[in-house]
């Protein structure tokens, strides 16, 4: 390759600048001593301490974390099972339809997912008296439902790339189907499950629309609190909070990337 032309190089820089300057400005202003978002008043971490004393935000953050942990875990279990079934149980009626349907929630607008889940919860409540008050429980269920699809797609892609004779070899050596799944399949798709879990976790932390639809009176997740606060104007406290969230997401992405890398390295070179 030739050296990249100056033109292409500046286009690239411009693109990255557009993407990241707002984020860096926001992060910088979270350390601003002044209350006015447009005036630099010196370095300070006072907004971070203020954040720690804000009960409402702390509660919301804890709730969001809890929902994200639970929903990511269940979504990973269910999504892995769906992925395994779709790519390993041979041919069965309606398999291709199901394969398409598992990916549909990925492209469904959040508003529609949220609204349909809300309607489902309302009618379930009327018919069965369950799930009771809408709140953390309904948000968790909703998050499991849509992030499961992401996990299933990731796991399925990994399984499609995996040499099926590995499982056959294990079975040939005396492994019963359950043992083969435990000894061979799961260890080999573990990196995909881990990145699926991280994705589900981030999706849940990030979600505002579906949570707003399916939540009840009491429960507010972090995005919901931030959104309602921003309506009243941006405070340096929100800047501090967002900086923390960005830090958390960055760490998540790095870990996920590391898993992916390890998975690539673990594969033997094709003969």
């Amino acid at each position, binding site marked *: 390759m030739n050296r990249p032309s100056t033109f292409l190089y500046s286009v690239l820089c411009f693109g990255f600048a557009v993407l990241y300057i707002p984020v860096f400005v926001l992060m910088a202003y979270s350390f601003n001593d002044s209350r006015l978002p447009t005036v630099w008043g010196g370095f300070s971490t006072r907004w971070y301490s203020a954040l720690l004393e804000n009960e409402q935000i702390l509660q919301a953050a804890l709730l969001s974390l809890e929902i994200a942990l639970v929903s990511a875990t269940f979504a990973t279990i269910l999504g892995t099972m769906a992925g395994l079934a779709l790519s390993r149980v041979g041919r069965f009626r309606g398999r291709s339809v199901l394969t398409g349907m598992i990916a549909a929630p990925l492209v469904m607008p959040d508003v529609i997912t949220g609204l349909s889940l809300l309607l489902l919860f309302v009618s379930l409540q009327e018919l069965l008296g369950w799930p009771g008050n809408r709140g953390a429980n309904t948000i968790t269920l909703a998050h499991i439902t849509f992030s499961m699809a992401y996990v299933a797609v990731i796991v399925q892609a990994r399984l499609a790339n995996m*040499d099926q004779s590995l499982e*056959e070899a294990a*079975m*040939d*050596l005396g492994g019963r189907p359950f043992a083969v799944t435990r000894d061979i399949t799961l260890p080999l798709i573990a990196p995909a499950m881990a990145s699926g879990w991280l994705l589900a976790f981030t999706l849940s932390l990030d979600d505002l629309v579906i949570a707003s639809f399916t939540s009840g009176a009491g429960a507010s997740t972090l995005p919901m609190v931030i959104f309602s606060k921003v309506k009243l104007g941006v405070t340096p406290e929100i800047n501090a909070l967002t900086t923390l969230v960005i830090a958390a997401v960055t760490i998540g992405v790095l870990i996920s990337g590391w898993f992916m890398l390890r998975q690539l390295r673990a*594969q*033997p070179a094709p*003969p």
Partner: protein
Amino acid sequence: MTTPGNTLNTLNTTDTPNPEFINTPWRDPQQRPFIEIEGLSKRFGDFIAVDAVNLKIYRRELFTILGGSGCGKTTLLRMLAGFEKPSAGRIRIDGVDVTDLPPYLRPVNMMFQSYAVFPHMTVYQNIAYGLKKEKLPRAEIKERVGRMLELVQLTALSKRKPNQLSGGQRQRVALARALIKQPKVLLLDEPLAALDKKLREQTQFELMNIQDKLGITFVVVTHDQEEAMTLASRIAVMDAGDFVQIGTPSEVYEFPRNHFVASFFGSINLFDATVTSVDAGELCVLLDDSDTEICTRYEGELAVGSACKIGVRPEKLLISTERPAEQGNTITRGVVEDLAYKGNRSIYRVRAQNGRIIMVSAQNKQRSAHLPLEWDDEVYLSWPSDCSVVLTA
């Protein structure tokens, strides 16, 4: 264990090897086959991959299945291992009907074409996997894996992961892993295809040694005829889902049943001929475009007057400038059109009187700087008549 099919077999057959047939158990009518395949078929939709094959393989044989790409070798092997459910037919191993058994209950292990070495386990763990599934005590596993590592010369690498091994080492891991359970039958799907020529030849002998040492029946699939000849006690030549001929390497080479088998193993010269007389296993034909009559052994059915082909291997032909003795020989004349010196032998392309090209392979027994023959030399070609093979199709 007995099955209904089994009782019938044991009535007049035996399991103990007859010393007279120790190296050729398939010639012993009393010997009970170790693997018996009856009418085995596999259909994929409309496509017939394996077409009602019958096969008997005997204990301690190194049996190879040879055939072109897509002829159904892998499918047949996968049915023996239990990964593919036959559309019809039965498989018996050591008297037990295994047709409906899942792979993990069959006394059979397989070495895969892709090796299928578990990437997340070390060499040691890979080889120990089969024994762990048998729930053997730790000490015994350790001892047996240790011995197996020595057998395949991998002791020094036992802690490595597969991605830190060379292709040949990975192939030995796959072999050791399949051998460790001491299966009754080891199935090998193109075990040496991924190795370079030199390593392949060396490994062929290693494979034969290991088979001899452990006394396990091997069924090897290959599409390399030279490999099949080197390894096999018997070769089954397969084409389009069916066996064309089953026999020892020299049988399939010297007595090919038809044109397909003959041309699969090396080259062969073909002459058109017409049958003149048939008499108790001896068949006489007249070569077209000449007045030479050939009489040779033939067990098939051919009517007098029907057309057939006579095949002669290039190395059976004698090339000379003087007319050779008539007795028992078939003689024809030609002109040297091309010659190639190959060191140990020379290849001549001779144009016969009818315009047909005949290949001759001659040993260079004399030490000499020039060849005894030159381009455009008039030569006699002769071969012992009983070296002629009658070929149909």
